[in-house]
Every structure is written in structure tokens, then in C-alpha cells.
């Protein structure tokens, strides 16, 4: 089982509902976010185009954060989801520095926090992650890459996609449909 997410940049309007849903569902401390919206405007005036992306931890297949963790607090869980065990984390900041996406942050309680794909609270019960289930434009797809018939496998077969900085060697598992 390999959990992954596909996000349709053509459908996303950047409403930040995914951000608020995540903060509510996961009790993210005030002022922090586990997912966020990025707007990229590129081109030369007047030929401009904008891409809106909902970004989060890429749950990389080759995670530099898991590799550098000195205590094993950062680890691969079910479906390759990258999780942090708070009681093993010493808050050294190595994983934060190691993440090319800057997806991690120190929780005010001291341990490191990040997107969990809602594995403990939702996905393990068969539900979709909070951000996916709340999206008003239905631009996010979550599922198992090893299952060829899952929603996410189907959509990345049909559409063109990219991942963020694959050249960093992380094998990210958030696919942006373009």
C-alpha cells in the first residue's frame, strides 16, 4: 500500500478551505499550518499565467527527514506515510532543515509537527483526509498507488502531472495535475 494525493491545479481556486479544515481536524496550534496554498504567477506581461497549489508534506518515498532523524521519531507508517512520534522527538531540528519543501515546523510543545495524511484520525477509519473531503471544487484525490483502480491511480494515468522539485531526489508523492 502506498498512499498518495493528486491535486488538480486547474480546478483549485485557492480558497484555503483545506488549510482551515486541517487546522480544525488536527488541532494545529494557532498561527501554524500543516498545509498551505501557494500561488505562482509566471510569464511576461500581458501573457501571464497563474498556478494555484495546495501544498503539504510530500510523504516522500525517499524521505531525507526520516533518514536524518537521530532517534527514529520520524518514521514510515502505513502506506509509506511519514509520521513523527512526539515522545521520541527531541526537537533537534535536523528533519526541519532536511526537508526541501519546508513542510515541517516545531510545535509549541517542542516536538516537530507536520501533515499526517490524517492517517491516525481519518484514513485508518476508511475516510479521506480532512483537506480532501472538504474541498469545495473537489480538486484533490487521495488513495492507494498500488491499487490500479483507486481514484488517485486513475487520475494520474489520465492527466499530465508534475511533482515538486523531484530533482531533490526525494520521490515525492503529491502529484500536481497540470
Amino acid at each position, binding site marked *: 500500500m502506498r498512499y498518495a494525493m493528486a491535486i488538480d491545479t486547474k480546478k483549485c481556486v485557492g480558497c484555503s478551505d483545506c*488549510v482551515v479544515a486541517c487546522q480544525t481536524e488536527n488541532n494545529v496550534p494557532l498561527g501554524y*499550518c500543516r498545509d498551505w496554498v501557494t500561488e505562482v504567477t509566471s510569464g511576461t506581461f500581458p501573457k501571464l499565467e497563474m498556478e494555484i497549489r495546495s501544498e503539504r508534506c510530500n510523504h516522500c518515498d525517499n524521505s531525507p527527514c526520516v533518514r*536524518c532523524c*537521530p532517534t527514529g521519531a520520524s518514521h514510515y507508517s502505513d502506506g509509506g506515510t511519514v509520521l513523527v512520534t512526539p515522545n521520541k522527538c527531541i526537537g533537534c531540528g535536523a528533519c526541519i532543515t532536511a526537508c526541501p519543501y519546508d513542510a515541517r515546523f516545531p510545535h509549541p510543545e517542542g516536538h516537530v509537527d507536520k501533515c499526517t495524511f490524517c492517517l491516525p484520525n481519518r484514513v485508518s477509519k476508511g475516510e479521506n483526509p480532512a483537506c480532501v473531503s472538504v474541498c469545495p471544487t473537489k480538486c484533490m484525490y487521495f488513495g492507494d498507488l498500488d491499487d490500479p483502480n483507486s481514484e488517485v491511480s486513475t487520475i494520474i494515468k489520465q492527466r499530465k502531472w508534475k511533482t*515538486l522539485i523531484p530533482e531533490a531526489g526525494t520521490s515525492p508523492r503529491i502529484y500536481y495535475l497540470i
Partner: protein
Amino acid sequence: MNEEIIISGRMNEWIDPQLHIWHWQIPIYLFLGGLAAGLLFFAALFTIRGEQDKYPTIVKIAPFIAPIALALGLFALFLDLKHKLFFWRLYTTIRIESPMSWGAWVLMAITPLSMVWCALNIKAIFPKWDWKYEWIKEIEEYLKKNILTISWIMMVFSIILGVYTGILFSAFNARPLWNTSILGPLFLSSGLSAGAATIILMSKSHIERLTMAKIDLLIIIVEIFLIVHMFMGFLASTQVQIDAASLFLGGKYTTPFWLFVVVLGLVVPAILEFLEIKNYKMPTFIAPILVIFGSLMLRFIIAYAGQESRWLY
């Protein structure tokens, strides 16, 4: 011209607008670790060469700085932790892939070793020292008989410690400025140089100071070579590494790096040491102080600039 404007809705403390998770604690610790590595390396080296009596400061006195430096460094490292009460988790596991785990375990070995080394040489500082108990004296006798073995172990561990202070950074491919394997040897040589400089400051014997000045001069030349090599590597690499190098080649850190690290920390002390070796009279404390200053600045600048180099935005 194609332009790109990126607006991110993320504003996490310590992460945005740019990463600043590591502060003075990390460069201070890396400096003290490197300094201890240098002091212990030379103590072991000259013991193995059988020159304990010719170079008493190197072998018997300067190593007393090492456990103090290591303890202070570890304390700085502890201050950096954000989940402090769980620090012992470092020692419930060995993670081969994590440089920080390596560092924690190497420190666990070399800190007691440096204390043992000092205990064996305590009479050099306190001539009337008496261990009082027979069994301690027996252990001391046994260790002194095996001083060569201890020296070899200490030399290997001090090299690992010195290299590790650089590898800690270079293992992070997310920060292009750090992602060069040159940092390992560069930080090792910088640590050895700081150790040599400390010995020059502490020694009262002319021969000892001259020997260390010769060694230090050689290390400084190696360091300059490594820095040139580092920039050659960056400029011949990917765009993110070219951008990272530009922090030092016209960017924000140009003046501090070239002035404090290269000119004041390497070139000037190299000239002063060269003149000293050529028997010109001059105050001997200037060069070593500059070397120590440069070694400290190198770590500060690399630590801060590295966090500014990035892949994405």
C-alpha cells in the same frame, strides 16, 4: 523575460519567511567540538610519536581544554533542543543513516576518553595530586601501560568528531550551500587549526610553538585549497548551488566571509606564522587568536548562510 512570482500562504514560526531554526548554539557547538577534536588529535599524535617529553603542552596540558569544550558544546546543543526532556532518546537507538546519531554516539565515547586522558596527566597541572585509593592507582598503571592503544583510539575518534561537525551540515541536500562533501574535511582542518592555535597560546616553549606554527601553516594552506575547491564545485553544479555560492560571491555574506574567514582567519595568520618560522620577531599571540576567530566565524557564517539557501522558495 520570463518572471515568476510566488506567494505562499505559509507563515510558520522558525520556518518562514526563510528557514532560521538553528541559531548560535549550533555553530558554537561545532566550533567547540572541532577545537576538542584538534587538541585530542595532536595529543594522541605526539604520544604515538613518543615525544611526550619534548612537547609537554601538546600532550599533557592542552588536552585539559578538551573535556571543558565538549561539555560546554554539549550544553549549547542541549539549549538548542526544543523537546529538551526527551534528549535521552538519542541514546536509546543507533541510526546508521543519521549523522546526528553518529555525533551523539561519538561524543558519548570521546568525552569520557578525554576525561581519562586528563586524569592520566593530572600531575602536569597539580604536581602533588594523589589518587588516595590503591585500586585507582592500579587502573592508572594499567592505562599508562596501554597509552599507545588509547592514543590510537583517541586519534581515530577525534578525526571522526572533526569530520562529523562538517558532515552534519553536508548531509542535508535540502540546503544547497551545505550539500557539499568538502565541508567534512574543511571543518576537520579548521578544527585542527583551532586546536593548534590554542596550543600555541598555551605553550611556553619556543620549540613547541614553532612546531605547531609549522603544522598550522600547512593546515591553513589545505583550508584555503578546500575553500577554493568548494566554490569551484558549487559553480560547476546545479542552479540551486550556483545560487547558494552567490551568497558569498556578491551576495549578503560576501564581506563577512571573505574578510573574517579568509583574510583575517586564514591569510593574515598564515603570513604571520610564515614570518615567525623565518625567525622574525613578533608577538606570537596574534596569529593564533586570528585563527581561532576565523574558525568560529566559518561555522557561524556557514550555519546561517546555509539556512538561507533553498530549492523551492
